[in-house]
């Protein structure tokens, strides 16, 4: 592993950013820097799954990555970093709900597992889910909902996707701490989870079946 990968994986912000600046000054290829940084996020994701890292580590690594990207991006001429992806994943937190930490964790882990991820943010109206599904053509749609009183909104969102006739090409997984099988049935989702790791496994299985 490169030094930069180690520094970011260990969440050493100052050292990492200093190294990025030095690498850029020395004329290092920006894409090499970005891919070293991405590799670090893989390591962070693994450490999280091994319960060696916790939510703050994950969130902070995301911030670090954003900083690295902001230093590197101006130097990139071509659009760059075409990474092989295994599928497309659309995610958002349902209307009425603004919890985003869990959603971000999932988006992060899905990206680490090779998905191209589009994140619609929080408090996402069902029409936005529908339009994004039409435009982005995801293989899997993830809906996050933590509040018991948004279960009906999850159901309505899924129904809107159904009604628009765009459900057949994709699977829908819902996630959030308060969910259980009865909510999955109520909302007519394909799967539910209260744990991001298990959710990612489910998505990988679905892609395997495709």
């Amino acid at each position: 592993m490169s030094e930069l990968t180690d520094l970011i994986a260990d969440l050493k912000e100052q050292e990492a950013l200093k190294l990025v600046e030095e690498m850029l000054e020395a004329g290092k290829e920006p894409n090499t820097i970005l891919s070293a940084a991405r590799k670090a996020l893989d390591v962070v994701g693994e450490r999280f799954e091994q319960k060696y890292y916790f939510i703050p580590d994950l969130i902070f690594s995301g911030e670090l990555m954003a900083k690295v990207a902001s230093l590197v991006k101006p130097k990139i001429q071509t659009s760059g970093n075409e990474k092989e992806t295994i599928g497309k994943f659309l995610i958002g937190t349902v209307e009425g709900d603004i919890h985003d930490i869990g959603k971000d964790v999932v988006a992060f882990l899905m990206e680490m597992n090779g998905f191209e991820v589009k994140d619609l943010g929080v408090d996402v109206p069902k029409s936005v889910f529908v339009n994004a599904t039409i435009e982005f053509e995801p293989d899997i749609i993830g809906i996050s909902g933590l509040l018991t009183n948004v279960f009906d909104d999850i159901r309505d969102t899924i129904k809107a996707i159904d009604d628009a006739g765009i459900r057949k090409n994709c699977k829908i997984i819902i996630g959030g701490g308060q969910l259980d099988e009865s909510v999955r049935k109520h909302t007519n989702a394909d799967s539910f989870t209260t744990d991001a790791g298990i959710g990612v496994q489910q998505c990988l299985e679905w892609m395997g079946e495709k």
Partner: protein
Amino acid sequence: MVQKLGEKLLADWLSGSHITFKNEKIKKKYSANAKRIIDTIKLKKTDRIPIIPCATQKFAFEYANATYKDAMYDFDKIRTAYIRQYENIDFDAYVGPEFIYPGGMFDALQWKRLKLPGNHLPADRPFQFEEAEYMKADEYDEFLDDPSDWMIRKYLPRLSPKLEPLAGLPSFHNILNYYHGLHDFTFAVADNPGVLDAFKALAKSGKVVSKWYDHLAKFDQEISGNYGIPHLLGGCSHAPYDVICNYFRGWRGAISDLYRQPEKMLKMMDRLLPWMIDYGVSSAQSTGNPICTLYIYKGADSFMSDEQFDTFYWPTLKKLIMALVDEGLMVWVFTQGTYDTRLKYFAEIPSGSCLIHLESGSDIFKANEVLSGKQCIEGNVPNSMLANGTADEVEQYCRKLIAECGPGGGYMMDFSAFLDEARRENIHKMVEVTKHYGQYGLDGRLKQQ
């Protein structure tokens, strides 16, 4: 020896000295309930496992066809709802709508970052608050330099457009310079009519609060006095780390600070600690209740590493709890989420001084092993089961809890979280099962298995 505050409050609370009871029988019932609760917290032998409601919301409102909006605006209606609930369900203690604040208090100030039912939200939704960076990452020093000044001139104006004029006042500590500070200060007030308007808005808000206080004050008489059910919820306080996450930096901001400026964060927590102790003690005193509640938020298992918990969360929380216990108070620690790895810490507090609430995310059976003989535990009956399960399932679950956690005492039956949706028969079943299977004999053993 001087009597500690908590001891005095406890004696008054046990006897219900401020309540006029409907009759002797109700008074006896009150005393028995109150004693059962306290003996259970203190890990003493009692007659039975108590059944308590950590809090009911929508479930209670429905007794008067009320909504979340009514709860914040129509005080008489919502009080009727709670009274009916306790008339119908004979819990051993009551918790009212203490944390459902009056909508008018916020409206008068046009409080930001808060969505209210019936206004920004449907009437049947709870109010929602947003975590944001109310204090920016580079403002720790400014806050620490003069916290109250910062709160008045920076924090309040950010949260309320009505209080924005306060931002134009000169710093309060300037008043010390001969009389220069005074003339600067009074001039600034005279020169800016907005300041008077700000105080008018505060007074308007306060008038609503005054009605709300009157409303809350009626509960004891109505519920304890008529049904013999003591009030469980008194004073409250907050873990300093949570205060930073919830009210100053937002969780995300606080997370960055853990890595970027941990020392400043620690300093701020040290600064907040005496305030939190002070509020815990004074709110216990003003509510006349010996049990001080601490809802804890951002210390859950996955929310930080053990090392971060040891450095940032526990030290000030422990000092806070110890200070409250030193005053003779008992502390109701309301954990939210999964706290399996954190429970052992509560063994560091003198035994029999805490009541630890567990949600269904925590393993209560393990908690029972870890804390047995140290602190009382309660909670855990899954709200999803109460909403969707059958009375039979509830009975089985509660009997298992009683069989595992009941022996040796130090356990109370309660839901996992604040109660919204739930089948009435399931709640009745919880109460019935606890009162039947939760009885102890004189030898301290459960009578039935």
